[in-house]
């Protein structure tokens, strides 16, 4: 269908300066150009550097080697990789647990409540990640607001969460919440109220209605939101450095250090390429599982 509208647009434009090239060139061209220059080219460049040998003077020597990748099998880096995936999974699950009910409420609330709710969901996105991390430090720190209040109340300090994985996850959930809520809400808005009423009428209480009708129908939105959250989470740098301290480094921090401090670009490239490969692999896996599940459909369980 887009094809016909494009070709008719082209016919209309024949004769005008725009008509020299087909419409899709004008519509997609700028973005494709940006993609080629800012994504595909650098990735190609990185993958080449990643098989070069590191050299302290010239940064790298064009001598093909797999040493950068075998170095990644070092138990330290495996530990960092596993921590990164773990934080990614926990954050995504936590975001979904908080975000799905919120998305449902936003999808069903009044227009006015929606405007206010959307403001609070989107507002954190307007604050830089550094500022947000500082905000969390002020609240959660050893001498943070919570502990100070506890001391005042005579309970004493009890919250020692800063510089742990938990702190990273807390900050990341806040970052990921709008990424999950917005597509989930869009999917839920499309579910007609009559479907909920039909389910209720047939005997489904609120929880079963949610599980049997709303969740399966909103799944495409939840899945894309969860994927966005996961991808953002495992490539994070600033949040993990500020919230997790030196004991809880993630892949992003290692890459950053190799690029900026150690000046070992070949090794940094190998890590970056590995991260991209992991992301693509996991997304493909989850898409395949998702497609398989939707083909098999969600069978009713009583």
């Amino acid at each position: 269908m887009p094809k016909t509208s494009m070709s008719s647009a082209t016919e209309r434009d024949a004769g005008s300066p725009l008509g020299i090239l087909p419409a899709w060139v004008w519509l997609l061209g700028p973005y494709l150009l940006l993609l080629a220059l800012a994504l595909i080219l650098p990735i190609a460049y990185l993958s080449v550097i990643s098989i070069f040998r590191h050299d302290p003077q010239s940064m790298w020597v064009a001598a093909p080697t797999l040493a950068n990748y075998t170095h990644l099998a070092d138990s330290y880096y495996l530990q960092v990789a596993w921590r990164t995936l773990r934080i990614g999974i926990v954050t995504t699950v936590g975001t979904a647990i908080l975000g799905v009910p919120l998305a449902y409420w936003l999808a069903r609330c009044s227009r006015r409540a929606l405007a206010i709710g959307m403001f609070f969901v989107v507002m954190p996105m307007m604050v830089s990640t550094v500022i947000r991390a500082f905000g969390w430090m002020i609240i959660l720190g050893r001498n943070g607001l919570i502990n100070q209040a506890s001391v005042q109340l005579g309970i004493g300090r009890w919250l020692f969460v800063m510089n742990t994985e938990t702190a990273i996850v807390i900050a990341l959930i806040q970052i990921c919440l709008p990424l999950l809520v917005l597509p989930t809400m869009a999917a839920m808005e499309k579910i007609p109220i009559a479907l909920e009423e039909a389910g209720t009428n047939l005997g489904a209480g609120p929880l079963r209605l949610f599980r049997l009708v709303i969740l399966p129908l909103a799944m495409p939105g939840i899945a894309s939101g969860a994927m966005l959250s996961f991808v953002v989470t495992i490539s994070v740098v600033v949040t993990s450095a500020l919230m997790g301290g030196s004991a809880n480094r993630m892949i992003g921090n290692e890459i950053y250090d190799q690029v900026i401090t150690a000046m070992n670009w070949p090794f940094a490239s190998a890590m970056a390429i590995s991260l991209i490969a992991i992301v693509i692999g996991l997304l493909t896996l989850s898409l395949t599982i998702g497609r398989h599940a939707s083909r098999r459909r969600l069978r009713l369980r009583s």
Partner: protein
Amino acid sequence: MAGESNGALDVVSLVKAYAVDVAIGPLSFSVHPGEFFSLLGPSGCGKSTTLRCIAGFETSTSGEIHLGGERIDRKPAYRRDLGLVFQSHALFPHLNVNENVGFGLKLRKIDAAETARRVAAALELVGLRGLGDRMPSQLSGGQQQRVALARALVIQPPLLLLDEPLSSLDLKLRQQMRDELKSLQRRLGQTTVFVTHDQTEALAMSDRIAVLSAGRIEQIGTPQEIYQRPASRFVADFIGKCNIIEATIETREGKVVRLRTADGATLCGRVADDSPLKAEDRVWAMIRPEAIDIGADKNERPGRTIFDSIIHDIEFLGEDTQVRLNVPRLPLLTASVKTTRAASARIGTQQLSISVDAEDVYVIGH
């Protein structure tokens, strides 16, 4: 399959008040076991709200709803065990036909074999045998409607609620579904409440009809009663076409009254047996277009009024022809005749003598 647990529905002084909208009620009506009962009225009359109160999607402000002797209006909607067919069908798009129909049975923890048997029986009943593996998107509008009906009937509800289920179908299909729905309801003896704004549907399908307007019941009666003896001007106007003439009663003898309009025209009409109307009362005289006899016989008979008229215009509607007539000292009258050669010949002239029997001039108070 349904029918064994059919119960009577009693709606007692139901009121639904809104902050901004017009309030509904108080409404009271009873639906007998096995009856096909319609709530008929224009949009905004409160018929859908009444249905939604029965189904439990709206909470009534006051009043009671009883089903089979049990009060249900404070029960949550998912515990009421009612069958409901929506205007939009509301089939679950992620489930196939079998799973849609079986949804209510699974929730009732009926075992798989029994569920399969009852789902198959329900699909058979609505004429969709063998389509259980289709997805709703692969079905036509009429088939989706049947699945929705099977899904509502398979739980053997004591009461089936139909919320304008036919209005999303095109005309031919609508008439066919109307007949099928009616015969199915008869066969099962399924107590049914049907909400519609379409008077033809209501007249064709119902055992009894409640006509609603602005949140109140105007009249409850059989289709014949509603059509022939409308209780109010609104009912006469809303159900079918009607000539409504404002007049004053001159004399009354039993049921027969003599009327005089403000312009001095006189005609005979009849009031209901128990009507308290008497001489000098201001009334509406209501004449159905098909009750006006066009020029066939000019013999005077008791109770018959004859007018001389001039044809204003003629509208050909196929089966029927509608003639609008100028009658001295009366408003423009609409008459409807079957399109026969004889009738066409008669309305070929400019002037026409028309007559109407007192029995066909139904008179109600203002």
